[in-house]
């Protein structure tokens, strides 16, 4: 496969040395060699290849070696479907940019053959690494739809994440990725919410909730030991959407639950999943697991977040080499238990607008929940409609894999969102429900850009509005 001009080349002039990186020089995470800065020079290409060899695992090697270029993956990818005449949008092309480096420089078989070749395939220079950055960060939402449709079982999303991780190690990342990684390294949460801000917001939410419910006993406990569960949040809930925390607190109170938030280690999101940085992934996940252990919680409950659920429930334990010692579950499963046990009374007629459900990629394809949110929605909504396709075959909200933080790729993201927009429009629903904060923003962008007559809500919103008090 030739290295032809990619649509990602439109971003080739993006600088490698960003202002954010220049300003980060003295930061603790930089000094401690956790957050990596870009250094101009020839060594980057060599280092890339060295890390490619070192980070190769058996599953990755199998995925890199097994592709037969059948092209079936193209029909699974919303980028390729939206740009059917552009081969550089196909998953196979994107993965091939990593694969050819692997074959040429890492795979002994490829190295053997490369001695016979005379041209091309040298050590990548910084411009080529920049180009690779734009492909792996800017033209793939790592939704894994292609993986599920590959007859060979090639995990293209894992290959993309491998490349992202190596580029992150070299500081060759989009500015947004750098900024969020910096915040999560420096503060323990990806939106840099300080402890005072966190405690004040929680207190404010508690006061509002008490006033709304007329019940002074409602609590949002912090650092309470020996609870049934420790609740973990997406920082977006503290910074932009405290209603989500209020809804959770209301439901937990009505269900008679004993729960707590930790003072530190409450962030269940993990930018390590998106940047491919396993060390950041391990650090953030460990904060969460250790907070639950410190508080002697009996389980960890993860608020509605796709990548947060995948990171905290699945990947985090592996990144942190931390054998799971407590059950962890999504709040959706907690809600399902309450409804099953009759701890919450709901009336579906309180939600009369037609509702459809958008499955988060990280939960449906890399997690384990498809039926649970539907089980709930069918009990709290009068008119539930499936979109097509749905479940494990659903299309990405287009904001996955950190793309929402990468403003430079937004025009392309919104262009290929036509697939999602068509899917949403066909349902005729007025509300699209999702169990992911990232999808809330991603879908919100799609709805606005394509002028759709619908709003995004989350499962907790609909459960709360269906409550019979």
């Amino acid at each position, binding site marked *: 496969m030739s290295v032809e001009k990619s649509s990602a080349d439109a971003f080739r002039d993006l600088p490698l040395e960003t202002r954010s990186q220049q300003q980060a020089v003295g930061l603790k995470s930089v000094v401690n060699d956790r957050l990596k800065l870009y250094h101009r020079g020839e060594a980057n290409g060599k280092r890339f290849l060295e890390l490619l060899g070192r980070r190769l695992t*058996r*599953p990755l*090697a199998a995925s890199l070696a097994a592709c037969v270029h059948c092209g079936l993956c193209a029909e*699974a990818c919303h980028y390729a479907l939206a740009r059917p005449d552009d*081969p550089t949008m196909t998953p196979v092309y994107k993965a091939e940019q990593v694969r050819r480096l692997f074959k040429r420089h890492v795979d002994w078989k490829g190295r053997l053959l490369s001695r016979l070749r005379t041209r091309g395939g040298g050590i990548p220079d910084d411009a080529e690494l920049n180009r690779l950055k734009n492909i792996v960060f800017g033209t793939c939402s790592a939704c894994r739809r292609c993986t*599920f449709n590959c*007859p*060979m079982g090639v995990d293209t999303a894992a290959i993309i994440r491998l490349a992202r991780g190596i580029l992150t190690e070299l500081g060759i990342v989009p500015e947004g990725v750098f900024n969020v990684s910096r915040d999560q390294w420096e503060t323990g949460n990806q939106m840099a919410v300080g402890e005072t801000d966190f405690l004040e917001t929680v207190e404010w939410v508690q006061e509002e909730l008490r006033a709304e419910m007329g019940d002074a006993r409602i609590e949002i406990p912090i650092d309470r030991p020996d609870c049934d569960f420790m609740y973990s949040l997406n920082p977006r809930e503290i910074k932009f959407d405290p209603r989500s925390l209020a809804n959770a607190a209301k439901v937990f109170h009505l269900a008679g639950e004993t729960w707590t938030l930790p003072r530190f280690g409450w962030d269940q999101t993990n930018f390590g999943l998106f940047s491919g940085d396993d060390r950041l992934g391990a650090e953030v996940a460990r904060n969460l697991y250790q907070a639950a252990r410190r508080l002697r919680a009996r389980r960890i409950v993860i608020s509605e977040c796709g990548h947060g659920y995948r990171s905290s429930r699945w990947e985090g334990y592996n990144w942190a080499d*931390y054998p799971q010692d407590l059950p962890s*579950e999504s709040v959706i499963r907690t809600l399902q238990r309450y409804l099953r046990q009759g701890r919450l009374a709901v009336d579906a007629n309180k939600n009369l607008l037609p509702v459809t459900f958008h499955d988060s990629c990280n939960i449906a394809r890399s997690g384990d929940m498809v039926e649970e949110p539907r089980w709930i929605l069918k009990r709290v909504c009068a008119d539930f409609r499936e979109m097509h396709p749905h479940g494990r075959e659903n299309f990405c909200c287009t904001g996955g894999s950190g793309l929402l933080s990468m403003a430079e790729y937004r025009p392309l993201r919104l262009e290929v969102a036509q697939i999602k927009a068509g899917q949403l429009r066909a349902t005729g629903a007025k509300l699209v429900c999702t169990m992911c904060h990232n999808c809330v923003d991603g879908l919100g962008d799609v709805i606005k850009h394509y002028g759709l007559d619908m709003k995004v809500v989350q499962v907790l919103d609909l459960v709360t509005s269906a409550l019979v008090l």
Partner: protein
Amino acid sequence: MSGFLHFLENEIQLAALSFLLLIYAMRLIWLFRLCSRREKTYAAGSAAAGIARSLLNIATPWSMESTRRHPGFYLQFVVFHLGVTAAITLSFIIPYAPQLLEQRWRVRSLQTLIGAALLVGLIRFGRRLVKANLRRISGIDDFLSLLLVILFFLTAIMAAPNRFRQSEWPLVAFFGLTALLLVYVPFSKIGHYLYYPFSRFFFGRQLGHRGVTAKKKNLP
């Protein structure tokens, strides 16, 4: 049978096959030397069931959207690979069990199957040439491998009657090409079958463990 054809059917084939197996053994050693992280999480489903389901996807075209939407593509896949199996089997039957080809219906059956696979090979080659996107994501090996397999089918059809007394050249062409393929396969995409069990195993193990592709355990 000439001494050359005998040598080609036996010693050369065995040498080429040994070379292929040697390279495969080296590939497997390389693959097994790489680490494969163990899951640290509580299982939601069954890794074993996930692996079984993943490996069986070859026989369950309805399990993937891509093959569900293109049953013709799946049928081509089945015919093509049955043809490959038949042609490889023929390369062992002719030197080691030629009596099996004494019955005409067996020869005809093999020729029909391989002929159908040849047709699929030509369709695939044409598709790769004509479809701009597919052409542009293809490398030299994508075309060369397919071309070699098409020629392999063609020579297999001609060699199947095993009439070396009438003319040896169909057999020389078939075994010559077989030997060439055996040497070329480990370095080409034709060797994908070596990796197939691995990639599907890892896919199934992870997603089965997580309860994505395998039935979930009853949770409290």
